């Protein structure tokens, strides 16, 4: 993982983990790497990884079992909400950009439908 310069490292770690959860790479109930493992893999201070885990725990995305490690939530609703939140973010970025190309709403929907058909 390459770090972006202008964001705090812990936020980037949070985003990195969220992406892996939403993409299904890590599923609900899976164990996350230990703080030490992840810090060693990303070459960052363990305290930073610890902070990222704490933030994720506050958002109820992960939970800690004493002496066992940190696990992704088993609550599908929470994961679904994360997916939807992420989707909203992606869409709003997309809309902002495509509006800049001066299409009206119907044209935008048509373009999207065409592209999705092509993908299939």
């Amino acid at each position, binding site marked *: 993982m390459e770090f972006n*310069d*202008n*964001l705090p490292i*812990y936020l980037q770690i949070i985003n990195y983990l969220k992406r892996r959860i939403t993409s299904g790479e890590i599923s609900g109930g899976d164990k996350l790497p230990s703080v*030490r493992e992840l810090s*060693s893999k990303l*070459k960052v*201070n363990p*305290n930073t990884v610890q902070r990222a885990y704490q933030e994720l725990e506050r958002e109820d995305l992960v939970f800690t079992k004493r002496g066992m490690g940190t696990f992704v939530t088993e609550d599908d609703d929470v994961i679904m909400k994360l997916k939807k939140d992420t989707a909203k973010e992606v869409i709003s970025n997309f809309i902002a950009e495509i509006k800049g190309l001066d299409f009206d709403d119907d044209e935008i929907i048509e373009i999207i439908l065409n592209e999705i058909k092509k993908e299939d």
Partner: protein
Amino acid sequence: MENLVEIKKLSKNYFNKKALDNLDLTIEEGKVLGILGPNGSGKTTLIKILTGLLRQSKGEVLIDGHKVGVYTKSIVSYLPDRNFLYNWMTIEDAFKFYSDFYSDFDLKRGEELLDFMKLGKDMKITSLSKGMTEKLNLTLVLSRKAKLYILDEPIAGVDPVARDQILDAIIKNYDSNSSMIITTHLVRDMENLFDDVAFLKDGEVILKGNAEELREEKGKSIDEIYKEIFSE
């Protein structure tokens, strides 16, 4: 959290030259502090005062509540920026030396690290390259379960492979019960290791704070902030 190191109004003069000027700095327990500055900014002078190799002209230094002396030397694990082992030693001798003098030396950890660094115990100190010397010194220093680690320019002048190994070793062996001070001018390679940073210029701390907060506040990496401060 408790402060493990407290530095108050610290000054050091060499004849007329001020090496450190009225410096205040604290290091919390369990934190990694990066002291950043170019050569000649006073980093090494500060480190030498903490390790008892230099005397301050003014001010006070407390480590774990004690003035620098035999006690603090027993809880500080120090990596100098030079080859400090005796020339007659083999790596084996150096290991014995460390376990004889430092009761916190963990032989098992030392052997694992030595393996990781791909060094053999029968090697002679004088036969090691610059990178190997740095790796050996770091192995010895990190194999102590010290309260405070002080690493002076741990990756200066070593090749990229050794650099990665050294960073790995530091992260893997860092223990959140102890604190660490790392000085460097190679900020880009090391900035992700720091909880807190202090920028040192002409013997004064001109900026200090939590690394993440500084990134957020300035919208810049620590490396970019460093370049901004020292480019003039």
